[in-house]
């Protein structure tokens, strides 16, 4: 897990102490008449520094804790939470939850996750890599990052600064089935935002990296240069005329497309009949070369977890196999509403890997970013999306966009102030290829997505 001696790390001592408090909270809930209860407690501490134009801008010390409790009383549910972790506040919080359960309704589907599905041990996923860093060192790293952006091109006229965040913390979860698990984790990120141009033609863009392990972060110099080149590449954009064209979603925003898919197969939207993918289980949602695997236990990965937020053990799953939907994303509650079993997705997904099986035959070079541009030929490369114009009930999609016009596989010029629109069901089926230019910054590892045709609105 870490080379640091556990006995000398106060955070790990605190984790053990909090386990004791969670167990006590569960007992108290029971004594107040709850026939079931679950308690989640988290703690986060860390340092955030921001520099701008070579000077320190912010130094923030983070130190947060929160406890949430849900009690069940003859099928009725009550929840309460507190950021005040004093004994008195904890007791008040539990009493509040029990009190609320007197007024909510009996709901046959509510209750803890089934006992046999719980993770009774927290598998070590190597998520905890504390970094001993003082304020001065942190400031220096942020300064180097921003300076690299400022130095890389004279058209970088202004900056919104660089920031370095180093956080450690832990989560503890316990319930009245006797589960009591917890694990520490860390998260470090370095980011830079700069502005190219001046006056009435300014463009901002950013670059960042995030990792559980500080030593694996991209260098500040790399991040700074990337932020600068992104901002410069956007200068003097054109507006496009209104037309239907193929659209390539660059890998760093391609996760938004999978995000809409996640919403559409999530239990909450399914039992509410608020998804365009109702009854899609087992059917082709994507072309047959698209597969999505979930791997919750990848060491050090950002979305790794041994159990979900209800304590249910997570496991490797095929989400999409050769285009067909293999599973919904369920919590205990939504599973019961649908007459199914939870899939361990309370709180979200756990590391998705998106694969295009054609890459295996063609080789990954054939699907890198340049190759994807070639496959696009002439059309729109989208690098930024704005607004919330996605309707999961019927799949209608309409968002603001910026990016580049591509001609014959080459980037021609930046474009902005356009919208792209379509319907998600059709967009999913209209995927022509998924690239090998994987973006690894989030919970979904995906390459760029090429879609056959979307409506662009412009001048």
């Amino acid at each position, binding site marked *: 897990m870490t080379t640091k001696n556990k006995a000398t790390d106060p955070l790990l001592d605190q984790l053990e102490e909090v386990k004791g408090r969670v167990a006590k909270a569960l007992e108290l809930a029971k004594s107040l008449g709850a026939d079931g209860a679950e308690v989640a407690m988290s703690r986060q501490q860390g340092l955030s520094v921001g520099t701008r134009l070579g000077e320190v801008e912010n130094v923030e010390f983070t130190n947060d804790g929160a406890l949430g409790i849900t009690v069940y009383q003859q099928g009725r549910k009550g*929840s309460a939470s507190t950021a005040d972790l004093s004994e008195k506040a904890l007791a008040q919080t539990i009493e509040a939850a029990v009190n609320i359960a007197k007024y909510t309704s009996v709901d046959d589907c509510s209750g803890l996750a089934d006992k046999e599905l719980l993770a009774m041990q927290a598998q070590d996923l190597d998520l905890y890599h504390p970094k001993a860093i003082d304020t001065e060192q942190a400031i220096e790293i942020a300064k180097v990052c921003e300076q690299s952006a400022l130095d890389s091109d004279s058209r970088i006229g202004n900056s919104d600064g660089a920031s370095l965040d180093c956080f450690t913390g832990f989560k503890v979860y316990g319930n009245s089935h006797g589960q009591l698990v917890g694990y520490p984790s860390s998260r470090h990120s370095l980011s830079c935002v700069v502005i190219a141009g001046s006056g009435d033609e300014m463009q901002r863009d950013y670059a960042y990296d995030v990792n559980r392990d500080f030593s694996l972060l991209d260098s500040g110099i790399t991040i700074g240069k990337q932020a600068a080149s992104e901002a410069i590449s956007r200068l003097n954009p054109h507006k496009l005329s209104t037309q239907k064209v193929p659209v390539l979603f660059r890998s760093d925003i391609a996760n938004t497309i999978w995000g809409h898919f996640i919403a559409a197969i999530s239990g909450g939207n399914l039992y509410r009949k608020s998804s365009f993918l109702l009854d899609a289980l087992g059917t082709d949602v994507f072309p047959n070369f698209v597969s999505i695997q979930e791997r919750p236990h990848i060491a050090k990965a950002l979305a790794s977890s041994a159990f979900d937020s209800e304590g249910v053990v997570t496991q490797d799953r095929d989400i999409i196999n050769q285009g067909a939907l293999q599973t919904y994303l369920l919590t205990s509650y939504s599973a019961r509403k649908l007459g199914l079993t939870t899939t361990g997705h309370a709180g979200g997904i756990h590391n998705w890997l998106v694969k295009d099986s054609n890459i295996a035959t063609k080789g990954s070079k054939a699907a890198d970013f340049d190759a994807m541009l070639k496959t696009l030929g002439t059309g729109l490369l989208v690098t930024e999306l704005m607004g919330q114009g996605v309707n999961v009930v*019927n799949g209608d999609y*309409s968002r603001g966009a910026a990016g580049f016009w591509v001609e014959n596989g080459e980037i021609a010029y930046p474009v902005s*102030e356009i919208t792209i629109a379509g319907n998600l069901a059709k967009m999913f089926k209209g995927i022509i290829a998924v690239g090998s230019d994987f973006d690894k910054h989030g919970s979904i590892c995906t390459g760029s997505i090429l879609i056959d045709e979307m409506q662009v609105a412009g001048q």
Partner: protein
Amino acid sequence: MNNVEKVLLTDSQIDDAILSKTLANIMGRQVDFADLYFQSSQHESWMLEDGIVKEGSYNIERGVGVRAISGEKTGFAYSDDISPLALQQAADAAKGIADVGQGGQVQAFTRQSPIQIYQAVEPLGSLSQEKKIELLHHVEAHARQVDSRVSQVIVSLSGVYEKVLVAASDGTYATDIRPLVRLNCSVLVEENGKRERASAGGGARTDYSYFFEVVENKARYLTYAEEAVRQALVNLVAIDAPAGTFPVVLGAGWPGVLLHEAVGHGLEGDFNRKGSSTFSGKVGQKVCSELCTIVDDGTIANRRGSLSIDDEGTAGQYNVLIEKGILKGYMQDKHNASLMGVKPTGNGRRESYAHLPMPRMTNTYMLAGESDPKDIIKSVKKGIYAPNFAGGQVDITSGKFVFTSSEAYLIENGEITTPVKGATLIGSGPEAMRNVSMVGNDLKLDAGVGVCGKDGQSVPVGVGQPTLKIDEMTIGGTQ
């Protein structure tokens, strides 16, 4: 001593002397300004779905944030424990930003009594639990009764009771009690296998009695149910929206999201001090059509975005941002105001004690013009009428902004005709505002539902506007 001081200070063995000593400790470095922000809040929410009250929750939060400013630098630390020791530790951490040396003097506290924009009521206890549950059921029953195509109803009710106290090295000493309530109704309608969802609601800085007030001859909570059903049914028969550039007529009230995105964020002091806004350096210049006068007004009684004092202790104000198209000034917190050599404007806001204050909007709206809304519609040969929006976003540097309609219609030959599906509208802030060619005489504020996000911090806000016409905007439809 008022109740806020008792809860936040006295109960934790903190008095004036400790506050002064803490500030003096921070100013013992080369610090220009320091402040302490104490906060406690209670929040409850209830949710009804499938005809039963599925969830209820109660949240308590309490803590203190300590800030030290030295030039453009800010040091910040906070604690969820309010005690003399925690206060000292946070102060020691925050002052680390500044070099060793002597800072400014700590001024003697002046206890302020700003005008109360809202009453110090406690919403959570203003209605019995039984009555809250009954309210949820009534909203649901009404929604189902309005139309048989309603297949699902979700009703949620929430209340916040917040106490804040600010003490600062410039002598500021102010307290505030901030109630906030919200009721929402979301419906799913179904016909011939086609489904649409819509929601409506409202709220204010008062207690739950707000929802029982009579408006348009009925209890306010009933109007939310009716409005949600009405919007969902409109969308059930909506055709695909057009794609391209068209004249757009925005309805009165909530479409004021336009101003929030196209103008408001770009006029926040921090972006303008840093020169990163498309409106930077343009005070005194014409930035909008002369038909536009836009204000940010924290002083409207009981409004969701209103503030008796902001989170730095500055009284809420009525600020003219743009007058007849001319940019008059920016929205400021103390830090940015002092760096830009202007006065704070009552816009220093923070999500909680654990977040740094920034210049933020309160209630942002455009004053009424002279056109009859009917004439505005009549003036459009082919375009879009959009009376409701889902939300928006802006890039303050390039000025590009979007907002997404949740209810819209075609205008054909001066008449509102067929409903069209939700679509995103995109434009450039300054350009869209120059293209405002008619402003209605029907100023309306929104129903009290706005939440604004900036740098990861959410705060309640209000928007409003009269019906107005923009000659050209890009509509992101599919046809």
